[in-house]
Each structure stands twice: as structure tokens, then as C-alpha cells.
């Protein structure tokens, strides 16, 4: 779980998430994104949000999933650090995300991530599964 690399370009930051299946890749991508946003050690799983998103294809579904999480972070100020992808089809994803409301006294924020983009977006099968995504930061 949570095996990922950071792609580091001048203007924006990206990640490559690995997993034994696509569900794990999607969960890891979300974890990687929140690890850019905040220091995740010490963030509890007191809050659970059920998330359902749909999109035209698998890649777009990854963007929709990550941007839904960013939306919740922006509106509810929840830092998520646990992700359970329950169901993943070509056009639809259902998942639970666990985390805690941001507390400026205990949590350290790192980089503002504005959005997940479609640029150089990939979800592919190779040696296991992997996904590549670039963020606007």
C-alpha cells in the first residue's frame, strides 16, 4: 500500500501511484495527493466520507475522484489519509475516505493543491498497475 513516486516539475507537481490492482492505485493516488497537501503522520480517521463519482473513462475517473476529495478538503477542511476503494468500474467509483478536520495547532499543511489535471494522465497495467497524474499547485 501507498507505494508512490513524486514527479517534480517547475510549475506543478505530479505523482506516480503503484498498486496490485486498480483499486489500490486509486487509493494510493489519493494518499499521495494528501501527502503533498499536509503532514499525514498523526492525522486520525475520526471522519468517514462516502464518495461516489462517475466519469467517461478510467483516467477521467481518477481525476474526478481526486478532485472530489479536494472539494471536500476545501469545503469541510478534512485532511484525508485513509482510502478504501469499494467498487471500481470503467465509469464509476465508490469509496470511503477517512480523515480528520484540519486543526492548525496539530496539523502541518504543506503545499496547496488546486486541482488534479488531465495533463499526461495515465492509468495503465504493466508490472502491476500504475497511474500518473499532474496537479496544479
Amino acid at each position: 500500500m501507498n507505494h508512490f513516486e513524486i514527479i517534480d516539475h517547475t510549475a506543478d507537481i505530479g505523482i506516480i501511484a503503484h498498486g496490485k490492482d486498480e483499486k489500490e492505485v486509486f487509493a494510493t493516488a489519493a494518499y499521495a495527493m494528501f501527502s503533498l497537501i499536509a503532514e499525514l503522520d498523526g492525522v486520525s480517521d475520526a471522519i468517514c466520507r462516502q464518495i461516489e463519482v462517475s466519469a467517461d473513462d478510467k483516467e477521467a475517473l481518477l481525476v474526478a475522484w481526486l478532485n472530489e476529495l479536494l472539494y471536500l478538503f476545501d469545503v469541510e477542511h478534512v485532511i484525508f489519509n485513509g482510502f478504501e476503494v469499494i467498487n471500481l468500474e470503467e465509469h464509476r467509483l465508490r469509496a470511503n475516505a477517512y480523515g480528520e478536520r484540519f486543526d492548525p495547532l496539530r496539523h502541518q499543511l504543506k503545499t496547496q493543491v488546486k486541482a488534479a489535471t488531465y495533463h499526461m494522465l495515465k492509468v495503465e497495467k504493466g508490472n502491476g498497475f500504475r497511474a500518473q497524474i499532474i496537479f496544479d499547485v
Partner: protein
Amino acid sequence: MSKGMEEMPRWEGKLTKIDDYRWQIEKDYKPGMRVPGLIYADEHMLKVIQEEQAPEQVANVAFLPGIVGKSLAMPDIHWGYGFPIGGVAATEVDEGVVSPGGVGFDINCGVRLLRTNLTEGQVKPKLERLLSQLFVNIPSGLGSEGRIRLREKEIDKVLIEGAAWAVRHGYGEEEDIELTEERGCVRGADPGLVSEKAKKRGVPQLGTLGSGNHFLEVQVVDEIRDPIVAEAFGIEEVGQVLLLIHTGSRGFGYQVCDDYLKTMGAAVRNYNISLPDRQLACAPVKSPEGKAYLAAMACAANYAWANRQCISHWARECFANVFSKSAKDLGLRLIYDVAHNIAKIEEHKVNGRRLRLCVHRKGATRAFPAGHPDVPARYHDVGQPVLIPGDMGRCSYVAVGTEKAMEETFGSTCHGAGRVQSRSEAKRRLRGVDIAKQLEGKGIMVMAASRSSLAEEASEAYKDVTEVVHITDGAGISHTVAKARPIGVIKG
């Protein structure tokens, strides 16, 4: 968990030198390009630009249906998602497309500059108090929420009216509107075409600076290069204090962009548009999708203008408190407010024909010359002020639009310094360095919501903005008027 880095290869494509400041990517560089690309740079800057794939992105933008002239790159160009940052692309309204990626997520991210009657000598002794006041009264940082409590449906009025909404509610003066690009309001905004999600993000964030590269800066005029134009702008002497505000449409704009990228993904298939990059997704300007995006983008642009308008009102209050004089007596007048991430419907002359164009400026500033009807009456004889912020450790420039920009760049020029170092590279190199202390050594006081964002935005991560304006001056697409250096910075 591993944290390997993937290096981006150098761009090895061919460039044709037109003159010392212009480099062309020929139309046959790759099949699908409809027009050539043109990069404004000198030899030195060009080397920096070729270090990454930004020129490839200039070539990719040339694929957009209906693009006219050239796919342009300002000297502060750097690699972005989809469009390069520092890119300008104009498409024909009748035949061409509009692309949300050509505007970006932070719709109407922009800059506003205010002048004062104060001098450095008067401000320096009270600088700490001033910055503390600004820091407390202008919400900044991730997740910050504004002081404005919008009633339900009130946000729709913000989205339709822009800066005027703020002024009507007591945040500023009528004159501010005259001195804002587009009078702080893109017409055609339709809140009905904006998602509930966008509004939910927008309501609490109105009147916040945000984080990332957004900031508020107390500056001192360091050099006046064109005294006549400077005086018209209200910049009278070296040592005069200015206030710069850099922010945009916050979560509202990000959501609008995300929503419409989905719409455009489907549109690309419906209209059989072939593109080298999904992030360039677009639809004909006159299609239902294109019109809907422009109406929603207008909402976000107007939100950003209202946002900067509210922030400047509080900033004026802070100055008034600290210097025990009214903002009016302190001469805190708006010089100008420019958008640097936006798409605008404008009329331009292309090959001798007047055309209605959709001009995408992503990390580029409008730079209209003297006499243009869209330049405020006050600046009619000198031209539109262009605001070019640098990084927090160096300086910023005020320039003015030119005829040359109208001829060549659809009335556009650069928007800032442009990154040369990634955020994590900056953090890595500056590990253990106390940036705030380092800046203090240069006479710059900093207050930041997050230490981490401070390292990401350090001078080392940016091109030297002085080199950038040297090129825009040399190419003639804007004309430098004055230079200012920061003495106090508020960072989100």
C-alpha cells in the same frame, strides 16, 4: 513509500531565430500545428526555456482549431499542465474554439497595485505594525475563510457584478472600478451555469488571499524609467510606497475549471477535434458548451475582481489605522488591476482584417496602448498599466501597453518572473535556511501563514524578473515605467 524523481528531458526541437528577442517554432515542426509558435526570449533566457518541455506545449497549443496569428509564449514562459504558463493564443470567435485549459484553474488570478503618498522613511518605523494588521485583517493561508458572510443567493450577485458588488457594499470606491481591467466585470456571466459545488466553495472564501504563490506586498519605488507615464499612473518619486495584491478566484475558480474540463472532454469527441493533450480540451466558441464555459468563466473572473476589491478595502483600513489618517488623505488610490489568467472576446487586426477573437491569456497580461477604447480615460494618453510582480526577494515592475503588442501579441505581455525551480527542489535546496531571516537581511519583512510555502516561493525558484522585462522591452510588447522593491510581504 519511495520518493524517486523523474527528470523532464530538455526540449531538442528546432527554433528559427527571427531577431534577438523572437524565436519561431515552424508550423511543420509537427503535423497538426495550424500556425507557427513564437517565443519571446533572448539567448540566455532561451537556454532556460529549453531546459524543459514548455516549447513543446507552445507547439501543442498551435493545434487549437481556429487559432490565428501564432501560438505565443512570453519570456516568463514555463512548463504548465496543458498550456504553458506565459502562453497567449487567439482563436476566431466564428470558427475557433475556447479552451478552459488556456485559462487555467485559477481563473482571473491577477494583480492590483495601489499607490500612496507615503515614503519609505515614514513607513519603515511602523512596518511591523502595518504588516501585523494586514496579516490579521486579510485572511490568508490554506483553508482560510473570509470575513464576509454572504447570504444565500447573494453570491449570484457577486458573480454577475464583480468589483461593483464589492463597491456597492462599501468595500472601496466608485473610482476603483474605472481603474480595473474590464471595469471589474466580464459581461455575460450566468450563475445558472455554475455548479452548486463551485458556489459552496466560493461563499466562505470571498475576501481571502489564499496560499501558494498568492501574496500581498508593501513596496518602495526604486527607479523611475519613464517619468511622464509614471506620473500619469500616480508614481511620482523614488522612495514612494506602493501596495501590491496578487490573488484570484480561489476554490470557486478551480471548481468552475474542473466542471468545464469534463464538459469539454465530451465536446472534443462530439465536434471531432483532434488534440495532442487532453488538458487542451475545448469546444467551438459559438457552441452551447463554449458559450456555457465563457458564461461560467465570467462568473469566476467577476468573483476574483470582487475578491481583490474587498482585500484592497481592508488593506486601506489597515493603513488608515496605522498612520492615523484616512485612506484618501494617504493617497491610497488604485493604479490598476489586471487579470493574468483569462479568456476575453476582443477585436484585433490580423493580416489587415479586423476579427473578433477569443484571446486566451494564461500567465500573460493584457497590454493595450494609448488611445485604445478599453484603457481607462485617466490613462488614455499613455496606455494601460501592466503590473509585473517578481518574486518576494527581488523586485516588481510597472510597465505600459504598446502599439507593438497590438500588432504582434493581441495586446499581451508577460505576467511575472516564471519558475525555474520546482517547489520541492526549492525546499530541498533551502532546507535549514531560514528564508524569513534571509529576507530580513535584505530589508524585507515577511509574515507567512506557512513556513513551507515560504521556501517554495523563494527567489531561487524564479527567473529574475529584470531579465524578463528586458526582453519585453527589447521586443517592444510593453514598455517599462518603474521598478519597485518589496519591504514587507504577507504570504498565504
